[in-house]
């Protein structure tokens, strides 16, 4: 399989002396749906800004679809679409102009850009806002406008920097469907998000970055299968007496309230083990759920390790 993006030993030290990236290397395969995760200030946006030409790298190599940004930056940029974290379009321009102009900057003639822009705006639910000034749009609409703008030149690689931040759940799910369809049609997608459930649902591969370094990367399936432990929350029928939990010490129990307890299952233990042990001490289970998404637990463990 071809490589959509390859980053080798990327470093970035800003003029202020802040080191944002310390030797980041990662590979994104063509057609992948890739999550780039990390806490605030970890270096995600610096990576994206270097790829898209908004920030100069200090050292390292970035190759997009086989083209190094050092050798042919315009050629490399032709294959990339970007949806930034912050709104960066003209507030007094109308929606259609914003998208059509972006196509123009990529060399797409107006007669091709116009129907294409309308198509993507329609697809993203902005068909009735074509001639509305962008400042009049809601936050969710502005995010979708930026997605349409990032797609109008039909890039092979689409980079989304927290595209669903501040977007309500219904709209977020709509965007997920749209991105999944886009990916199925062949567009490689790199997504940064703080909603780890989003990354777990959408992406196949992940890189976790902390303090400017990649601390874990690979397919989400492989990473999660390697998890040492996982926390579950059990809702019980009977009231839990604190002393009863002492016998469950190997599960590191934490009583949340009279009818809720959290247990940590080591890799070799199953959910059935935990339920059996609870039954043994006279506690029956009404329901159970993972404490948080598995990716979220993995993310926390990896970033804590790095710190």
């Amino acid at each position, binding site marked *: 399989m071809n490589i959509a993006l390859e980053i080798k030993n990327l470093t970035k030290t800003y003029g202020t002396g802040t080191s944002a990236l310390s030797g980041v290397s990662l590979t994104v395969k063509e057609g992948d749906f890739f999550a780039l995760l990390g806490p605030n200030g970890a270096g995600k946006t610096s990576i994206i800004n270097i790829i898209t030409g908004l920030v*100069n790298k200090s050292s390292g190599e970035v190759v997009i679809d086989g083209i190094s940004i050092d050798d042919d930056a315009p050629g490399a940029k032709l294959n990339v679409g970007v949806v*930034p974290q912050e709104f960066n379009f*003209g507030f007094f321009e109308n929606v259609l102009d914003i998208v059509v102009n972006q196509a*123009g900057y*990529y*060399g797409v003639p107006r007669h091709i850009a116009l129907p294409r822009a309308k198509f993507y705006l329609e697809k993203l639910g902005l068909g009735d806002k074509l001639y509305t000034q962008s400042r009049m749009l809601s936050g969710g609409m502005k995010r979708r406008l930026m997605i349409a703008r990032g797609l109008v030149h039909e890039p092979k690689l689409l980079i989304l920097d927290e595209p669903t931040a501040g977007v309500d759940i219904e709209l977020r799910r709509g965007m997920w469907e749209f991105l999944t369809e886009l990916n199925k049609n062949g567009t490689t997608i790199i997504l940064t998000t703080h909603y780890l459930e989003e990354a777990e649902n959408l992406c196949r591969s992940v890189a976790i970055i902390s303090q400017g370094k990649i601390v874990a990367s690979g397919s989400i399936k492989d990473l999660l299968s390697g998890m040492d432990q996982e926390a579950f929350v059990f809702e019980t029928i009977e009231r839990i007496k604190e002393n009863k939990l002492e016998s469950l010490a190997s599960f590191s129990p934490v009583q949340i309230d009279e009818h809720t307890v959290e247990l940590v299952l080591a890799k070799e233990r199953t959910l059935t083990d935990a339920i059996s042990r609870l039954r043994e001490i006279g506690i029956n289970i009404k329901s159970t759920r993972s404490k948080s998404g598995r990716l979220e637990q993995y993310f926390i463990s990896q970033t804590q390790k790095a710190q």
Partner: protein
Amino acid sequence: MKPRAIWTSYYTIVRRELVRLFRIWTQTLLPPVITSSLYFLIFGKFVGSQVAPIDGVTYMQFIVPGLVMMSVITNAFMNTAFSFYSAKFQKTVEEILVSPTPYIVVVIGHITSGVVRGIITAALILLVALFFTPLSIHSMGITFLFVALTAILFSLAGLINGVFANSFDTVAIFPTFVLTPLTYLGGVFYSISMLPPVWQQVSLLNPILYMIDGFRYGVLGISDMPVLLSASVLISMVVILIFVNYYLFKTGRGLRA
């Protein structure tokens, strides 16, 4: 990018800038017309009627080229400086910077809109001048050459200002403290032959003098200096500023971290 794609990119930048220019015409095109009308009325009619002819032309006719150039300089400069700084401020400049548009095309695109604004302003003011005094253009070619070169030069200068500015206040510093004094001292209202010899020599260091003088030759056929010298000074400065702008965009000074 292929040449056709580069052209599309250039056309998009120019179109977007011109749409902005005409959308806010009351802020861009109307003010120089009003200001110039007041100059013509007060300095040309009221004060000028008391002043003896200069090099065979009335004082009103003498100040027309200077006032036209003053507006061309200010408008070309402010067009690129404000437009580019606003794009930085709103971060819309990122739309272009993430694209494959070559940096020289970004520069030329912005310059084109500054030049268009400069030329439209010049035409409007010349039109207004006709209400106050008869004018017959001495050389259309030289007139146009000096308007175009001056508009190019100050669009380039405005772009540099826009690139380096970090607030709307800093956009205004250069025009207020450098451009306006140099323009007023560049022979808008007088011929340098009227100055004492020392100040005539000092005036020769003012680049705006060459622009106004060359343009005055184009319009009225009179000048203090050889037109070729004035044109050479202008062309040299244009070439230098093109390289400065290209360097700034290529290295990302004021644009990329």
